[in-house]
Each structure stands twice: as structure tokens, then as C-alpha cells.
């Protein structure tokens, strides 16, 4: 789960991670009203107007403006609110800005990069830092990996202050600023652990001219597996950031990602689902989605999954590819039959069933009287689905 920068900073403040003063706004009026309040709090006229969307690269797309005067700030609010913000992570269609964050301007001495996530190779959470802050950090990692400093969190004792001091020294921070970094990282690592984060990224982390260390940005992802421990995060979901089909899928605990193509896919298992996309493309088709119904799905969940696929207007054929293990083929059959009875079937449906209770599943589909194209294996199914879209006939 992802949240907005202003929500991330609210969480940071709760844990004692220093952030600039700022006020979020959901309307232009609120944003305009926030400007003098931020100025009063910070004691300076400079404010930063920041578009709140989940995608990164907002600055590059014109979604972040530093305003030296009140007039400039007001103009920035009018300009950014409601704009279709295009960044390298939004795709060409961009994202409509419906939330703003008005933040105090700071006297910045130097910018750094700070990231925190799991290092899969060792199974430990790792803090990464670089003196090349504000830059394209992926570029730095690719061309100068030695400029990315890493410190692992030992699960037995947790984060230690000496690790922050070591980072501070290598980053070239002075003594007082290093002490600030120690406090900063003590709070940040506690936030990561407590909140079951899967990613914390602060780009940039800044050292101010008056010797403070603050998070100028806050990108936070949470481990979806651990959301049951944090029910309070539910109110931070922003439906505008979610594809309607993806939102519906989440309700049913289905793993769904909308794609550009026209062959709807329903598959069990992430690996098989990805490979089903691969083989559809191999035979010249385009998948409309990634959908993993998971292992222990009920017939109701399969019905919901099937409905999600059929509500995508781009879908011109459906390919169900199931190799049942924990998932039973008869459960899949029940779900499909129920869904088709409820919402009808306007496009060709190709079904490949194999695995647990396969004979029962096949018999149920055959007896249902539904117009289903049976596939012998996944290559056969992919080819039939591609042919159905191209020929327009079954």
C-alpha cells in the first residue's frame, strides 16, 4: 500500500522524524488559505507548493514549485491544482492533481538520498544513503554503485546509533549534523519496524544552513501482508489513486493489475499469471490484465474475479488458465458458471483446467451449457484466445 507525501510526513512527525512545517489541502480555497499560515509558522515568505500524487518524479513534471512570494505561491496553487501531471512513473496519460501540500521553504546547504528497504539477498532491512541526493538515484546506482552507502539492520538488536555515525562520516556531514542524523535515523528505523513498511525513501534528505537534518520528501510503502496489524491505515487510502478494477480486486483480496491489451486473464499463482501474459504476447496477443486468484480462493472470489475482468470494456476475449493445487478446478468452474449467469458473457471464453479435481471441473463446465472453448494446455489456450480476438469469432 502506498500513501501520499503529506500522510508520510504526518507519520514521520508522530515518530519524531524531523520534517518541514506544512499543511495539506483538498481544494484551491484551502490551499490559498494555507499559504499565510505556513508563512507565519516558518517566519519566512518562501513556500513550496507540491502536487500530491502517488507517482514519483513530480518535480520533473512541473508538480512542485518553490514560490518566493505570496503572489507566486497563489499562482502555483492555481496552476498545479487540477492539472494532469505527467511524470516518468504516471504513464503518458498522467494523473489529475486533486490534493496539494503547502510547505515551508528551507535554506538548504546540501541534499542527500536516504532509502530503507529489505535486501532480499541477506533477508535484512537495509538503510541506503548517498551524498548524490536529489539526483536520479537509479542512475547513480548504475554508474557509481560505490556512492550508495549501505547499513543493515540486525534483527536481533535493531538499528544502532554507531551505524548512523558511520553513515554521517562517509557522507561528509559535520559533527553537529551527524548528531542530528543519529536522532533522525533512530526515529526513522523505529517507524519502519513499527509500521511494517516495505519501503521508505527520502529524496532529498536535506542539511539546512542552520545545521538541521530534515526529510524534504517522504515516500512510504507498507507491506500488504501486514496491513491487518494497522487497521488505521485504511483511512489513508486514496481511491483516486487506484484503478476501479484494482480497488474492487483488493476488496476480494485478489492480485490484479490493469494492462493495455484486450485478452482478459484469470490465472492461479503469480508465476503462472505472469507466464500466461508472456505466452499470450508470444502468440501475438496483448493481455488486458494480470490477475492471480490466489491459492485458497472460494467460488465467490472466483465469481468476483470473473466479474472484474468482464467489466473492463477493453476485454475482447477471456483466457482462464488454471493449474489447481490448493485451488480446486471444481471451485473455479462453480465461480465461472455463477458469474456468467449473473452478468452474462459477451466475449469468447477460453478455459484451460488442469490439476486438483480437474475431471469434476471440466464436467461441470461441459454440463453448464455455457459456450466455452476448451484448451488442452496453455499454449493451445493462448493461441485460441489470440485467434478469438483477431478473428472476432469463436
Amino acid at each position, binding site marked *: 500500500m502506498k500513501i501520499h507525501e503529506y500522510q508520510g510526513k504526518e507519520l514521520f512527525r508522530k515518530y519524531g522524524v524531523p520534517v518541514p512545517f506544512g499543511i495539506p489541502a483538498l481544494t484551491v480555497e484551502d490551499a490559498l488559505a494555507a499559504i499565510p499560515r505556513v508563512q507565519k509558522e516558518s517566519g519566512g515568505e518562501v513556500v513550496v507548493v507540491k502536487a500530491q500524487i502517488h507517482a514519483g518524479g513530480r518535480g520533473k513534471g512541473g508538480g512542485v514549485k518553490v514560490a518566493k512570494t505570496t503572489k507566486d505561491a497563489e499562482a502555483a496553487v492555481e496552476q498545479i491544482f487540477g492539472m494532469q501531471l505527467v511524470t516518468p512513473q504516471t504513464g503518458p496519460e498522467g494523473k489529475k492533481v486533486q490534493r496539494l501540500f503547502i510547505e515551508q521553504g528551507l535554506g538548504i546547504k546540501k541534499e542527500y538520498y536516504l532509502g530503507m528497504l529489505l535486501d*532480499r539477498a541477506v533477508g535484512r532491512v537495509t538503510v541506503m544513503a548517498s551524498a548524490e541526493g536529489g539526483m536520479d538515484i537509479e542512475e547513480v546506482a*548504475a554508474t557509481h554503485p560505490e556512492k550508495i552507502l549501505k547499513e543493515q539492520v*540486525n534483527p536481533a538488536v535493531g538499528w544502532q546509533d554507531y551505524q548512523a555515525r558511520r553513515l554521517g562520516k562517509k557522507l561528509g556531514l559535520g559533527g553537529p549534523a551527524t548528531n542530528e542524523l543519529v536522532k533522525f535515523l533512530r526515529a526513522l528505523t523505529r517507524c519502519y519496524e513499527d509500521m511494517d513498511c516495505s519501503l521508505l525513501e527520502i529524496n532529498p534528505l536535506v542539511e539546512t544552513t542552520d545545521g538541521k537534518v530534515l526529510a524534504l520528501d517522504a515516500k512510504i510503502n507498507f507491506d500488504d501482508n501486514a496491513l491487518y496489524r494497522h487497521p488505521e491505515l485504511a483511512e489513508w487510502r486514496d481511491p483516486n489513486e487506484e484503478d476501479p478494477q484494482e480497488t474492487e480486486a483488493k476488496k476480494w483480496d485478489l492480485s490484479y493489475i490493469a494492462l493495455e491489451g484486450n485478452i482478459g486473464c484469470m490465472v492461479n499463482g503469480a508465476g*503462472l499469471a*505472469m*507466464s500466461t501474459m508472456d505466452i499470450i504476447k508470444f502468440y501475438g496477443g496483448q493481455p488486458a490484465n*494480470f490477475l492471480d486468484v490466489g491459492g485458497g480462493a472460494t467460488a465467490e472470489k472466483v465469481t468476483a474475479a470473473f466479474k472484474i475482468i468482464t467489466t473492463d470494456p477493453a476485454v475482447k476475449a477471456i483466457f482462464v488458465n488454471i*493449474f489447481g493445487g490448493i485451488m480446486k478446478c471444481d471451485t473455479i468452474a462453480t465461480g465461472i458458471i455463477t458469474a456468467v449467469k449473473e452478468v452474462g458473457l459477451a466475449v469468447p471464453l477460453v478455459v484451460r483446467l488442469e490439476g486438483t479435481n480437474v475431471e469434476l471441473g471440466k464436467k461441470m463446465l461441459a454440463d453448464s451449457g455455457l459456450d466455452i472453448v476448451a484448451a488442452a*494446455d496453455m499454449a493451445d489456450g493462448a493461441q485460441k484466445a489470440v485467434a478469438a480476438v483477431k478473428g472476432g469469432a469463436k
Partner: protein
Amino acid sequence: MSVLVGFGTRLVVQGMSGSTGAFHAKGAVDYGTKVVAGVTPGKGGTKVAGLEQIPMYDTVDEAVQKQGANTSVIFVPPPFAADAILEAAAAGIELIITITEGIPVRDMVRVKAVLDRDYPYVQTVGPNCPGVITPGQCKIGIMPGYIHKPGGVGVVSRSGTLTYEIVHQLSTLGLGQSTAIGIGGDPVKGMDFIDALALFAEDPGTSSIFMIGEIGGDSEERAAQFIKENVTKPVAAFIGGQTAPPGKRMGHAGAIISGGKGAAADKIAALQAAGIKVSPTPAEMGKTLASIL
């Protein structure tokens, strides 16, 4: 011959009273696996419908002491799974196979730290995996048993359902399997490719190997290097997610941590550079291995 599981396995099912645990415990019994005990805290002494012959205990300790269990399979729900894994390790179980999907990463980071330090000799597979099967001897997990055939191909896979796919293709071609290991797709897990490959390399019953990887992380790249240096048996592979769209990943940091690795093309290149034949589509995995035997 085989690896990890076989005729000597004495299995305890943790979470056997749940519907999933019971269903797959029955599947194991029907396949001929020696299921010696079930454990669900608070259900000791009760009977599970359809599995009345198998004693239920409150603790794994009892399953080890009274029934000589040496292997555990875990079906308990995610919030209790970390505890269940550590309970099995503390009870003296030698091989722990965790099927449970959805365990928080934080829990697995801690479990791994404890296992590495206090129980280095315990082998673990999973979580979020289909399990381990030695055809004709022992089935532990959620895979459909009937698709497997005894033989000489060692299978190791990060993906559950793709494991069934390769096994089915191999069996159809008349190529049986020594053991099929689903290592699971979670970021923090027990056995990785290299551990499984090392077992297959040593096993006299394994004459060739098929490996299924996925995008993300760099364990396929490390496995390729390991094979190049240590494995003389024929190896073929497949990487799932070749057409997965970019941008649906974890921001910048995900790519940074593995030094820019993780894309299917990088993994395929690494495997090919190590002399491993890579199947172009998931439908040709079996044929690809057959072509180098």
C-alpha cells in the same frame, strides 16, 4: 534416490484441523506419505474428520516425542505462522515446509535471524510455496500428486503453479522427477535456488535439473554463477514475467538494492552465459530440457 523427503519422512501437519490443512493432509495420506501427527494448539486429543487415525496434539514437542516426527508442514494462518515455524525448530524438526501465504515480511526477517543463529542445521522451505514431493514416495504440500512420475529430473521453482506446469510437461514426455521443490516467491525465505541446486548436484538419483525463476531480486543470477562453477549435470531453465510491464515495481530503491538486476532479460542472459538452456515460452519447458539430454 531423492532429496529432502522420501520413505524416511515422518510428517507432522501444523494446522491440521483447519480446512486447508485437513484437505492437504488427506492428500498426503492418500499419496502414501507417512503423516504421523497433527498439531493445532487447543485441539490435542481431538479427531479431524477423515483423518481419525492420525493423533492430534497441542504442541510440536509431543509430535516429535510420541510419534518421532522429523518433518513439519505448516498450514497455519499468517498471523501465527512465524510462531509455528520457530516452535517446529525448537522441537527438533529437521525440515520445515511452510505453505502459508501472506506472512508479514517483518516476521520472516526475525524468523530467519533466529533460524540462522540458533538452528543452522534445520532446513526450511517456503513460505508461500507449494511444498516438496518425491514422486512415488512422499508428497508434502498442495501440489496435485497425480501429475508426477518417479525419475531423474530435479525440479526447483520460485512459482507454485509453474512447478505443476513443468512437472506435467516432463511426465507427459516420459521424464520422471527425483524431487520437485517449490521454494516459494516471498522475499525472505528458507532454501533458495543455490541450496536446492547443491542438493540435486550431490544426489545420485538426480541426473538433470530444471529451474524456474521469476523477475525481481537476483537469486537467479547467483544460481547461474553457482551452476557454472559447481553443477555438471544438464540444467535447463525458464524465467516467468518476461513481458511484465515496467513501472509496476517498488520505486527506485527496489532496483538499486540488487545493483540494477531483476529484469527477465538480465536473468536469461546470466543463465545463458552459464551454459544453461532457457525455454522461450512456458509451454516448451519440458521440451527444452529433453533437447539437451
